[in-house]
């Protein structure tokens, strides 16, 4: 599965050019992080890939049968549905609710330590657990590409580290391609294979880093690698800061 993304996005409030000539090649099974100054159009890029927003020019090429899953900063769990029903929501809407899929979701919940909460409501779950449920809800659709839009930024620092480890493992277990937006450089370095740095609006690809570490492991481990701070410095300097 190879994507050749090239996009030109015009936002019509007057004409605001949000994305300009973005070209990206994404390989199957790759974990890509997109970083850039806030408001540069990172989310717009993701929305277009996810089909929520329309593009104004350029092309996205991918295999027709590819399914895209979305995960947002806000867990967006519906408080009036229990955890199981929340996870089945996407399947229900797509009309793909069958015994096999229900079993699959149930297994996912069991595997990731949420089995006793299946019939509880979201209000009884902690922020980290809610985010895991949100991921399972996305995985329930068996997507080929996962789009994560600042998935951890609503969590406090401790939870964030733990949950990003969890999520990373879940994703690696299932071998999916991931495109993650984040404003946290450390998070990007610790989780991804490649980092795309975008410029200020209109967003262009400024630089792409391959993250290579000698003892690559889980995100928390990666933070301890010697290469970590080197990448951090490089990317930090690359991002346009304006405070």
């Amino acid at each position, binding site marked *: 599965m190879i994507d050749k993304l090239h996009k030109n996005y015009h936002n019509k409030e007057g004409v605001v050019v949000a994305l300009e000539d973005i070209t990206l090649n994404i390989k199957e099974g790759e974990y890509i992080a997109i970083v850039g100054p806030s408001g540069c159009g990172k989310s717009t890029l993701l929305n277009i890939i996810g089909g929520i927003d329309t593009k104004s020019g350029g092309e996205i090429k991918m295999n027709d049968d590819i399914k895209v899953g979305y995960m*947002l*900063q806000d867990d*967006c769990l*519906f408080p*009036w549905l229990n955890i199981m029903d929340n996870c089945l*929501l996407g399947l229900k*809407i*797509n009309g793909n609710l069958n015994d096999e899929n229900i079993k699959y979701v149930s297994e996912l919940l069991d595997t990731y330590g949420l089995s006793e909460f299946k019939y509880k409501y979201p209000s009884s779950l902690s922020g980290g657990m809610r985010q895991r449920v949100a991921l399972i809800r996305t995985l329930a*659709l068996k997507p080929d590409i996962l789009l994560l839009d600042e998935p951890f930024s609503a969590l406090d620092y401790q939870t964030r580290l733990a949950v990003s480890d969890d999520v990373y493992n879940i994703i690696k277990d299932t071998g999916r391609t991931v495109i993650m937006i984040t404003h946290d450089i450390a998070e990007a370095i610790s989780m991804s294979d490649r980092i795309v740095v975008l410029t200020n609006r209109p967003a262009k690809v400024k630089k792409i880093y391959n993250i290579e570490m000698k003892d690559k492991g889980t995100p928390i481990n990666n933070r301890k690698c010697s290469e970590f701070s080197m990448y951090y410095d490089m990317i930090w300097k690359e991002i346009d800061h304006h405070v």
Partner: protein
Amino acid sequence: MYDREHKEYLRKLRLNKFFVHMCQIIIIVSFIFIWEYLSSNNIINSFIYSSPSKAFKTIYSLYQEGNLFNHIWVTVYETFISFSLATILGTIIAIILWYSKFLFKVIDPYLTVINSLPKVALGPIIIIIFGANINSIIIMALLISLIVTISNVYNGFISTDKNKIKLLRSFNASKWQILIYLVIPGNYHVIVNSLKINVSMSLIGVIMGEFLVSKEGIGYLINYGSQVFNLNLVFGGIIILLVVSYVMYVMVVYIEKVLIRNN
């Protein structure tokens, strides 16, 4: 140590609650007592201001004539019909307006104008069109509560969490599915809450309607009483109305609790 402190805390809480209740009772009892005292000693004109005993006597004689519950029933019935209609119609219209933003933009100024118009001014027209009967009263009450329901429910609908809508759109949900899966269940409490507003709004409308046209109902009793200068009947009617509106309100609050608990 902890136990004693906690007990002390609970005791204070109970004491406070007791004092609040006591003050409430003292106010109502002394109000009735002073009113009765002033009136029976001719300090205020009992013909104009009536008195608690006379008002209650009037209510009792209505009961003996067998009319009391009929009047109450008529008013409650009219209120019930108009407030159910207002909630159902209001929700349906809000759904339509949510579904078509274009339609909302077109209708919005009309809604604002109609909302600010005192509906009682439409009374004569309503009576001419619908006749001097119960229909006019229900239409009157409906007009008052319908617009409020529409704008409450609509506002609830449009303030639905944008992220949740985005989530459903990422599942390729249709607008209809977004409505069914998210907007309506997410605004369930808004709709239920509008029941509470509607019950008092409808009651206002019904009493107004009964003032204009009616042969039965609590509004009729009050209006009739004032026309024949029987102030005992007017005050009696107001007392009945106080009780009826309070009971209806309590019932709706209870229904709200049950509905929200089951959600």
